[in-house]
């Protein structure tokens, strides 16, 4: 089925009834993120990658968990906040990142109630990439700019509109909703290739873990400033910290993002820090992205969206590291 370009706005209006639509919008000339659709203008799907990933809708920067009262008669109530939302215009790399988060928070051994509630009410409508950005390298990471297997619904570019392929029940529901706006025919335009290449391989992941004390880590880490930009912009970083905010007799317990690159992230009560310097922290982040996650969940945690490569203040580059490691340890494809 194909959705003509001019039917986009009516389609979105139909969707709006289901819940709040979040589309990629440019906040100002430097920052863009998934913000509520203003209900009239066509979303800018040509925007390469939003500065802030869509993970904020499922795993908010700050999420109230419980509200408690200690003065008078103590009370504790869970904060339930799971509005129905539709993520529209998600790129294949972000769609894959949502899949990674699902594996963590909706895992077999433990399911995170807060995340689960939100995820149940969110529909992900992916959109294939018409052209890739300078820092995109998703095809080196086993993804394709033309497919988003984990998304609910996929819109593939055609000359006159988009090819609608539903991939889950939620996707079916949306496709059904749009059935009189879509028509037969149209075939997807050829998928573009990423300009930035890096030869990541499963074998390399294994060697990196075995090369824990290799001097390569020391060579790469020095330029890092230890700020949290890469982790907060990364769609697949899911570390969080729990804290509370109290006002004498009452307050809230909340969960907020945390970054393994911060110096105090692993600082223990007695002041000992198992990852005291940048070397350990950067090594931990790269290994988590490229190897540890794969060992546990079977897929690499880096979706190649290129946000960290584009926004790192010191211009560190994970693809350069991968190529350097591959060439040094002879794992090149």
């Amino acid at each position, binding site marked *: 089925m194909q959705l003509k370009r001019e039917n986009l706005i009516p389609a979105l209006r139909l969707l709006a009834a289901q819940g709040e639509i979040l589309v990629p919008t440019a906040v100002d000339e430097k920052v863009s993120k998934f913000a509520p659709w203003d209900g009239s203008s066509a979303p800018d799907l040509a925007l390469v990658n939003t500065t802030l990933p869509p993970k904020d809708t499922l795993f908010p920067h700050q999420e109230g968990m419980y509200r408690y009262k200690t003065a008078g008669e103590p009370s504790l109530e869970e904060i339930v906040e799971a509005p129905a939302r539709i993520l529209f215009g998600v790129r294949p790399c972000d769609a894959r990142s949502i899949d990674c988060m699902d594996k963590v928070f909706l895992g077999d051994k433990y399911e995170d109630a807060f995340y689960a509630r939100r995820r149940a009410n969110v529909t992900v409508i992916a959109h294939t990439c018409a052209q890739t950005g300078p820092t995109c390298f998703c095809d080196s990471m086993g993804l394709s700019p033309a497919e988003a297997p984990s998304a609910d619904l996929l819109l593939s570019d055609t000359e006159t509109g988009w090819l609608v392929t539903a991939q889950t029940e939620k996707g079916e529901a949306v496709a059904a909703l749009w059935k009189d706006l879509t028509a037969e025919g149209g075939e997807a335009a050829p998928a573009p290739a990423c300009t930035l290449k890096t030869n990541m391989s499963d074998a390399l992941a294994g060697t990196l873990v075995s090369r824990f004390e290799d001097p390569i880590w020391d060579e790469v880490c*020095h330029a890092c400033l230890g700020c949290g930009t890469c*982790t907060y912009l990364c769609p697949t970083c899911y570390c969080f910290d729990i*804290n509370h905010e109290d006002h004498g007799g009452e307050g809230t317990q909340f969960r907020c993002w945390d970054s393994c690159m911060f110096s105090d992230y692993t600082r223990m009560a007695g002041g000992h820090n198992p990852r005291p310097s940048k070397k350990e922290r950067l090594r931990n982040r790269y290994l988590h992205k490229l190897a540890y996650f794969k060992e546990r969940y079977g897929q690499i945690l880096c979706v190649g969206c290129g946000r960290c490569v584009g926004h790192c*203040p010191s211009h560190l580059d994970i693809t350069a590291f991968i190529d350097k490691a591959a060439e040094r340890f002879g794992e090149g494809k």
Partner: protein
Amino acid sequence: MSDIQSALRETAKKLLTEGTVTCVIGWGETRFPDKTTPIFVKTPEDAEKLVWNAHCVCGLAKYMLDNRCPEGKLAICVRGCDSRAVNRIVEDKQYKREDLYLIGLPCEGKDAPICATCTHRNPVVYDVLLGGPVPEIEVSQEDRFQAVTALEGLTPAEQYDYWQKQFSKCIHCYACRNACPACNCTECYADQYRVGWQGKQIDKAENQVYGLTRAFHVGDRCIECGECERVCPMGLPIMSQTRKILKDINDLWGNYECGLTDSRPHILGEFDLSDRDDFM
């Protein structure tokens, strides 16, 4: 530009072979032609990787704080702003000047917005200077504080809305703090949750309080290198806060510019009986 680059490589090679320094910090290639990244050259052969072009925008001085008790000497390539950053860190007693070997590089300005109002293109402190000094551009106080005066003209409501919109974008990644040479504490107040200075929550008021507190902490020692605005992923106008404090200091207590060899000492660390007093 390239003869300075080769001179830089020669100097680095000489320093490393003679063993006067253990490491040379400069800029190196990345896979993107329009970007360079700080590199840490430890062997004479690697000196070939040092580059000097219009894309060397990353500040280098802050990296000395990775090892506050160094064994050997550390060489750093210093443009005008880096040399002031070195002065800043040495004046704040976080590093000893004799543990540093500064390779001075006069800079015609890089592709960063701050370079338009850069008052000191020639390094103010160096051990060796590569290439002749470049002509300084004349920056009047109006240009220096142009953004600040514009904001001062607004009404309190407009001012608050402007800052409210800016600070609500802050995602607390602390890139501004980690890039700023004046932010050189071993343990930042923002990381001490037990004391209760600052919560971990991300909301409009908390971001604004963090922004203002950091502005007050570094405002009177800010060397106007523009790193905070360059590194901020969300594009906050952080310099307009610190430059506001610098503008007030200039208005209240006379000409004040930080990080220069003849800079006045830390202004909040001293007082004058004849200070202006609005609190009578």
